[in-house]
Every structure is written in structure tokens, then in C-alpha cells.
């Protein structure tokens, strides 16, 4: 278990959205602003009593009302910006949501890199983690199996995006990626094709 992340860091940033669906393994956040979602692989945290950490695994923007499909509106507009400015209601009809895989939580002031005993509450605020937190969280990669086995569209892309992202927070990002690659190799030793795929994604950074 690692040192607790500082209290100040947890609340310094503005929330990106709220939890609208939660289980012990994943949570869905609806963004406060359309298209203002953290990118795939980003580390996020909830702002409730017990902080839960997640990695963004899927981002989607769709109609708020599942029965009302958006229709094409740009026939007389020059570009997409023009459509939004002439139809300000779109911001209320559409919403951006992202699904995160839960990879850790705080308990009694300690950071645990495994799923939380209880999911966060609905409407818990969700914050992006800044560099220092990402570096601290990725100090150990024991949670990688949670990412690799996540029931999302492409867990390998999520893992690769996460590792690429957090590597920038490390002083020697290359060394971090090599160590991370070795961790992946020991996890995916029996599936060399999958390992190769992730490594190729990592090496292009």
C-alpha cells in the first residue's frame, strides 16, 4: 500500500462530470459539458468519501433521450461549429458519457490498487487526476490485470493508452514503459499475439 494522496490534490481541480451508473468494477460518468470528457486511458477519481480511481475505457456522446435519435442538420451550414452555434439546444439534447474501469481506491488513508468494496454513489463528482497523482498511482502496476480483463470494447487499447499517458508523468518515461512492458509480458506470457499488439502500441510513443 502506498502513501495517501494529498487531500489538496483531490479537490483542487474542477469536476468533469458526475457518476450516473456505478458498480464495484466500473462506473459511468456523465460529463458536465458536451464533449468535455477525459481521453481514453486517462486516470480519474471520484470525489466522495472514499475516493475510487478509474481508467477511462470508453467514451460516448449520444442523445439524452434514447428514443430521439439526432438527425443530420448541416445541409445549409458550412461546418460543424456553425451547426452548434445555430442550434444551441443541442447542448441540452446530447450528452457525453464515459465508462471507467475501477482500478483502485482509498481506504483508511491508504491507496489500494484493486477494486473498492463498494461502488461510488450516483452523482459523486468525478475529477481528472493530475500528473503527480498519475505518477504516484502508477508507482506499482499490480492493477494491470483489472485493465486487461475489463469488459470493454478494446481493453488492450485502454491499457496501452493508460501506460502511454502516465509514462509522461515519469522522469524517465522510457524506463517506465520498459518496466511496464515487462509486467505485461509476465501477465500475457501465454498470449504472445496480444502482448505484441500492446507493445507495438507502446513503442510508437
Amino acid at each position, binding site marked *: 500500500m502506498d502513501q495517501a494522496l494529498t487531500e489538496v490534490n483531490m479537490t483542487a481541480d474542477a469536476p468533469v462530470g458526475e457518476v450516473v451508473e456505478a458498480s464495484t468494477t466500473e462506473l459511468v460518468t456523465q460529463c458536465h459539458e458536451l464533449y468535455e470528457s477525459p481521453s481514453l486511458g486517462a486516470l480519474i477519481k471520484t470525489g466522495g468519501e472514499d475516493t475510487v480511481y478509474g481508467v477511462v475505457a470508453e467514451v460516448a456522446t449520444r442523445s439524452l433521450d434514447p428514443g430521439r435519435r439526432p438527425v443530420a442538420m448541416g445541409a445549409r451550414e458550412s461546418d460543424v461549429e456553425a451547426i452548434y452555434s445555430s442550434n444551441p439546444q443541442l447542448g441540452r439534447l446530447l450528452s457525453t458519457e464515459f465508462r471507467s474501469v475501477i482500478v483502485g481506491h482509498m481506504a483508511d488513508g491508504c491507496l489500494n490498487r484493486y477494486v473498492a468494496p463498494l461502488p461510488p454513489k450516483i452523482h459523486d463528482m468525478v475529477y481528472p487526476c493530475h500528473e503527480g497523482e498519475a505518477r504516484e498511482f502508477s508507482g506499482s502496476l499490480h492493477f494491470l490485470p483489472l485493465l486487461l480483463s475489463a469488459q470493454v470494447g478494446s481493453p488492450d487499447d485502454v491499457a496501452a493508452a493508460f501506460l502511454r499517458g502516465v509514462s509522461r508523468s515519469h522522469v524517465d518515461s522510457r524506463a517506465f514503459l*520498459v518496466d511496464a*512492458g515487462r*509486467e505485461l*509480458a*509476465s501477465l500475457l506470457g501465454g*498470449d*504472445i499475439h496480444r*502482448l505484441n499488439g500492446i*507493445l507495438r502500441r507502446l513503442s510508437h510513443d
Partner: protein
Amino acid sequence: MTEPDIFGTPERLGMVVAGSLTDGVEVRLYGGASIEDVKVGTFVTLQGDRARFFGVVTDVSLRATDQALVSMPPDVSDPYIASVVSGTAAYGVIKVEPMLIQDIEGPMPSKTVPSHFATVSPASEEDIALVFGAEGERNFWIGSPLDMESKLCLNIQSLVERSNGVFGKSGTGKTFLTRLLLIGILQSNSAVNLVFDMHGEYGWEGSAEGHRKVKGLKQLFSSKVAVFSLDEESSKRRGLTPDYVVRIGFDEVEPEDIEILCGILDLSSVAADAAYSLERHYGRRKWLGEFLNLEGRESLFDLADAISVNGNALARLHNRLSRLKRFGFMDEKGHSSVDRILEYLDRGMHVVLEFGRYGSNLAAYILVANLLTRRIYARYMERKERASGDPSIEPRPLVITIEEAHKYLTSDIASHTIFGTIAREMRKYNVTLMLVDQRPGDIDEEVMSQLGTRITCLLDSEKDVTSVLAGAPGGRKLRSVLSRLESKQQALVFGHAVPMPVVIETRTYGTPESYRELGWKDAVELKAQMERDAADLFGSGEA
């Protein structure tokens, strides 16, 4: 991040992951340890939960966690992928034979294996000293372990207690090793040497690569070594005066001495047996002289009738034995060379018998070596029995060095020869053998099995390798070690004089520094030493 251990350090090679006592343990190399740096024969330590083991690397292999990696290798042209995959999905495994376990009383033969995940490291200098002992009177520095500088020692006392073998293809450094062993024995005072020096390599000087000459025992230890010669002319040609010129009389030859020559002289057993009939007919000391003086086929056939042996066989024996007349060191009358050799040996002198030009004549070598050894051995037996356990009057332990043993210690005649007897009886009569040979596969199995310590340079014939390793603990696994030795200055040592098999780089011999390390002093040093000794003895001039 993963534990730093997994990536290894220069001090840690890997961890035990599987294995058994009979097959040795498998060690998975840490990612940071390159398999290319691990050689078979390397001495390693295995730190288990409670005990420390010492072992030898016997095999090195490459493994992959997924067989797909073998058929579809990852893109290693990408340095990132290469550095990640090597040591993890594709990794090295070494096979280690645990030989010893660290006990309170010191290293003991291992009867178990280290537990799972025991850490394996290359042996340190302290480990070498702990296992093989530090250099001293009893421990002779013979070389260093592979890729190490530390001194690896042989226990000379244990070495001379049993017969030994130095094996290796020609040109692999047998002679250098033997010379070092002889020096070790000489310096330890644990035995005296009698060397049947076929090619004149041990006495005054020997040859090294590129026609370079290296000092022999006499040059290094002149007061302790006597050079005897069978061929005075050859010694004189080299400007040397032998301490004694050995001559052998026909009256000293016994039928047993002829029996060992059967193969070399192409004699049938009937012909060899005829020698015994001749001895009965003419008497013990006269038979050969009288027999060789016979001339003409008729007289031979008359004799054959008289002693009831086959005439043709006798004629053949006569024909073959007539060759002995051509040996310049043989004449009618005895010269008690044996007494002279024994006299030197009793004084603690080491005797090197140089064969000069007769070195290339195998019949001469075998005849003389066998004849002298038989008599010396008989004397030793007699004295040892007379001493009946009183160590103060026991004869000094004697090590007889013989070369080309495969030509007369073959399984069909080994049992008849004195060398076979000595090898079998071991130290019973304080005489042991040092066999120096290139074809151990042809040496009698029983003789080989009795060798206490075997020091073997590179051998590539299957038969030779099998024969040398027969009976060695873990012999099957040492096979790969033995066949991978370098062709120069490397040897595998195992048996009585070392606690565990080990590959050594033979110590350098032939440079002024190497002579000095062996205790040799050049003229200036010697003079200074003499002056110091004189001052100690008589007081300095001013006093």
C-alpha cells in the same frame, strides 16, 4: 512497478524454479542477466531458505512462455519490444547441478536441492576459498574457475592418496597440467615423484607453443629433483649431465616384463608363455641372455623340443626379443638401477627418467617403465609389510607418472601389468599412479574406476568422454561441460582432491613471474638469499 529483483543484478543470476536431485535444478534467469554470459562449467551458489548450496552449470537453454513466440517471433527490430520481451516472454534457463551444501563443518556433498525460488549467483572469491581451500602447504593452486581471478586449489594430500589421471586430446595442455601437479606434489612434501618422461618434458625443460622452451622441474627445484637418463647421448647433446644413466641388464628382465609387450611386439600368448618355459630351462637371471645368444633356426627348434614349446612360436619370440639388443641401454649384466632410483626416492628426491631417443619407441618405454615399477613396487610392498603399521619406518608415498597408458593398460592386459595392480590396490603400499593419456577410452575400465582424481582437458571422442566420466557423480551432466572445454588451458577436475567437479583455467606456466610464484629464484635473488643465510648462520662479518 515489478520487483527490481526480476531484472537481476550482476550478483544475482536467477532463481530456482524446478528440478530434482537426480536431474539438477532449473534456474530461470532474471531479465537483466544475459544468457550469453553464463557458461557451462561455471561455479555458482544457490541460496535457499535455510541452506547455501554450491553447484555447477551443466546446461543452458532458451525458453518461451508461449510457443507462438517460437513460430512468430516478436518484432525485435524495435529496440523497445526487444528489451521488453527478452528475459520475460522469452527467457533463459540454466541447469545447475547442486554439488555441495554448506554445513557447520564446511561444505558437504549435497543430498537435497535448494527450495523453490532460491537465488542463484555466480560464486565469489570467498566461496571458492571456502570450498576448495586457501593456497597453502596442502592446497596447491592449480588454476582459476572460469571467468574468475581467484585461486582454485587442489588438495595434494588427497591427490597422492589415490591414483590419478590427466586426460585430454593431444595439444590441450596435459603436459602443462601434469608438470604443475608434479610441482604441487613436490612442494607439499606429501610424496615423491617418479616420472617416466617419454618425451623429455618434465626433467630439464619442456616445450611450449612456438618452439618456446619452459623450465622443467630440475631447473626450478634443482636440489629436490634428479634427472635420470636412458640415453646419455641425447642428454649430452643438450649440454646436460644426467644425475644417473640408467642401464638394464638382460639378467634383470623377467618373463612378466615380456608379457606386457605382447601387443607391441605382436607376440601370441603361446610365444609369451614360452618365456616362462625358457626361464625354467635356463634359470632366473640367465634366460634372456642365453636365449638371445642362440643363433640359427635349428638351435631354436632343438630348444623348442627340449622345453616342449611350439618351435615357430619360440622362433618368433627370439626374433622379436632380438630387438631388445638394439636398445643401447640394455646389456648383458645388471646395474641395479632400481637401487639407485630407490636411494634417491628415499632421500626425498624426485626422479625424472628421461627416455631421450627411446621415448619414441613404445616397446622400450613400456619395458623400462614396467620393469622398474615392478621392482620398485615389490620393494615398497616388502618395506610396507615390514613396517606393519609403524608410520616412522614406512616408505615415503610414491607417485609414478606414466604416459600413453592406453597402449598397455588395455582391458586384455591391464590385469597382468604392475600398473593395473597398483591402480587396483590404491594406496595400500604407498605407491600410486598418475596416468597421462589422450585415449582414456582404451584404458581398462577397472583401472579407470579406481582413479581418485581425474583432471581432463578437452576430449571429443564419445568413448573417451564416457570412460573418463564413468562413475563420477553427475557424470551424465558433466558430459556437456567436458565436451565444451576450450582446446587450451582449460580442464575439468573432479574426484578425490576437489570437493566438487569444477572447470579450471590452468594457471600460467612458463613466464618468469609464474616461475617466481612457484618459488623459483633467479641468480641475483639466489645470491642474496645465500648471503642472508650465511649471515644468519655465521653472523655478519662486523660482529
